[in-house]
């Protein structure tokens, strides 16, 4: 007997990430300069690795509390208080997760009932909408645009509100655009959250990577702590992507509900990653500051270069992404990225992988060495020349 299709309709309804698809194509090419990577090019600071190797030798290999090591939660609480002046109780208001990705999943499952709507600002990280859907919720997309430097406008949220709206999901500094939102702009979102009794899920994984002005932690806005589920982690600021270590901070009942789900599905985050995270918070401020300074140099160089070669790019003030417009070329994002890869061996990610409104843009990461960035710019310029002079195969059109 032929087995019936066992995959659930929900799982089946979520298309694979556009990034995944593109990854497979890139894998077929040699000598590629990749601007398609969503992670630092620095290795994890040596001190962190050393602390973890030492812990391994001392036999630190057991489960931890479901919430995570208390010492790590205390260090996180101290760090958030020091930077943003928000007090979180390490005992009840912080959960250690396997990166923001797990925090997002468990957070959605903890707050959503079937049919609850979550307003999601796009373009955004690829997992936002799927996490809402897997938790039984309904994502309601709001499209930000280059006209507003990809910042979410309060009026857009007003339009998307329905009686089923339960939460607003934002991620600033933003992946893929590099957009940041100022404190007064975030305060406008806070006002709507207050008026309409919404929870705000704020993914602040790129918070440290803010190059002009200060990052605003959403829960530091007046009255917002009880309405904020703050998600953050160590991947980007401390170059620890593969460690899978992050945290969620929020009202005790939500964190407790998340801990319940986490305790049954993950039990606890890797103890070694937790040890590494403690070392990062306690002793690696200088290493982090140096990496951020390097990203800032590359940012200016690369944004300047993109504008010079004729790919208009608004100034990204956070994260390590640029989101240049390729609309002038007449190609779709997907075709542009594909042609650029095959012709000049530069990998970028088509903007529509991050939401429909990302069409017309490509995401380029500047977390690469200056030499690589310069070479990529020169290859891209060459590609644009070929396009202009009609020397590209028609199959790309």
């Amino acid at each position, binding site marked *: 007997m032929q087995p019936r299709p066992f995959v659930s309709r929900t799982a089946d309804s979520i298309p694979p*990430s556009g*990034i995944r698809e*593109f*990854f497979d194509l*890139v*894998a077929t090419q040699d000598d*590629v300069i*990749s601007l*398609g*990577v*969503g*992670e630092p*090019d620095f*290795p994890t600071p040596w001190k962190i690795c050393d602390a973890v190797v030492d812990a391994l030798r001392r036999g630190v290999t057991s489960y931890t509390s479901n919430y995570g090591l208390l010492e790590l939660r205390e260090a996180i609480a101290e760090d958030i208080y020091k930077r943003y002046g928000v007090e979180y109780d390490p005992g009840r208001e912080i959960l250690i997760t396997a990166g923001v990705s797990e925090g997002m999943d468990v957070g959605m499952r903890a707050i959503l009932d079937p049919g609850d709507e979550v307003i999601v600002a796009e373009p955004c*990280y*690829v*997992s936002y909408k799927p996490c809402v859907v897997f938790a039984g919720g309904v994502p309601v997309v709001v499209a930000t645009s280059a006209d507003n430097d990809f910042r979410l406008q309060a009026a857009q949220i007003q339009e998307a509100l329905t009686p089923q709206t339960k939460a607003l999901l934002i991620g600033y500094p933003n*992946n893929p655009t590099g957009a940041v939102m100022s404190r007064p702009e975030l305060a406008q979102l806070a006002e709507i959250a207050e008026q309409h009794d919404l929870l705000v899920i704020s993914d602040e994984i790129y918070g440290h990577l803010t190059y002009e002005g200060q990052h605003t932690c959403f829960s530091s806005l007046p009255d917002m702590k009880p309405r904020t589920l703050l998600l953050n982690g160590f991947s980007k600021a401390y170059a620890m992507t593969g460690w899978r270590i992050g945290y969620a901070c929020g009202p005790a009942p939500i964190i407790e509900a998340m801990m319940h789900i986490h305790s049954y599905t993950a039990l606890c985050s890797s103890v070694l990653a937790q040890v590494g995270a403690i070392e990062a918070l306690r002793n690696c401020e200088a290493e982090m500051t140096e990496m951020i300074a390097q990203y*800032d*140099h*590359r940012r*200016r*160089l690369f944004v*300047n270069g993109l504008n010079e070669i004729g790919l208009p790019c608004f100034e990204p003030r956070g994260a390590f992404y640029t989101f240049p417009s390729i609309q002038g070329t007449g190609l779709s994002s997907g075709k542009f990225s594909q042609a650029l890869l095959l012709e000049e061996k530069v*990998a970028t*990610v088509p903007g529509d992988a991050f939401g429909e409104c990302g069409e017309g843009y490509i995401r380029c990461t500047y977390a690469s060495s*200056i030499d690589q960035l310069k070479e990529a710019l020169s290859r891209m310029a060459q590609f644009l020349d070929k396009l202009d002079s009609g020397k590209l195969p028609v199959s790309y059109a």
Partner: protein
Amino acid sequence: MQQVLEILAQQGPVDPSEIATRLDRPVDEVEALIRQAQEEGILLGYRALINWEKADGEKIYAFISVEATPEHNRGFDKIADYVSHFDEVHSVYLMSGISDLTVVVEGSDFREIARFVAEKLAPIPGVRSTATSFVLKTYKMEGEIVAEEAGNHRLAVSP
């Protein structure tokens, strides 16, 4: 000036316009800072950092601890300056601790360096003793770790 110097120290000669973009400063200002650093003897020049152990041309180094007799009013300056002028000498430092000077000597083999010490360095009036230590393997030089690179393990495309 500090930020400009740090970029030059890390990367060697970099086009002033690139530095200007990276630091968000006017090009004129960066050019003036570089000129000033050169004029004031802060920026001495640019050299390539080469791991000679890997290159074909054999080149070895020795660190020589020198005990010397200081001179009235001039300390070790005269003898250190004299030692500095030999082509074989790579660098010379006045040291705290047991010896007075550390002289780094470059040569194509052990014998050449031994001959330099015996025939040129040790006989200098004022040099009381020398202790030669040859470099056997380099692990880090000028802030760069020489060991094999870990390699890039990043995926070519990731979210």
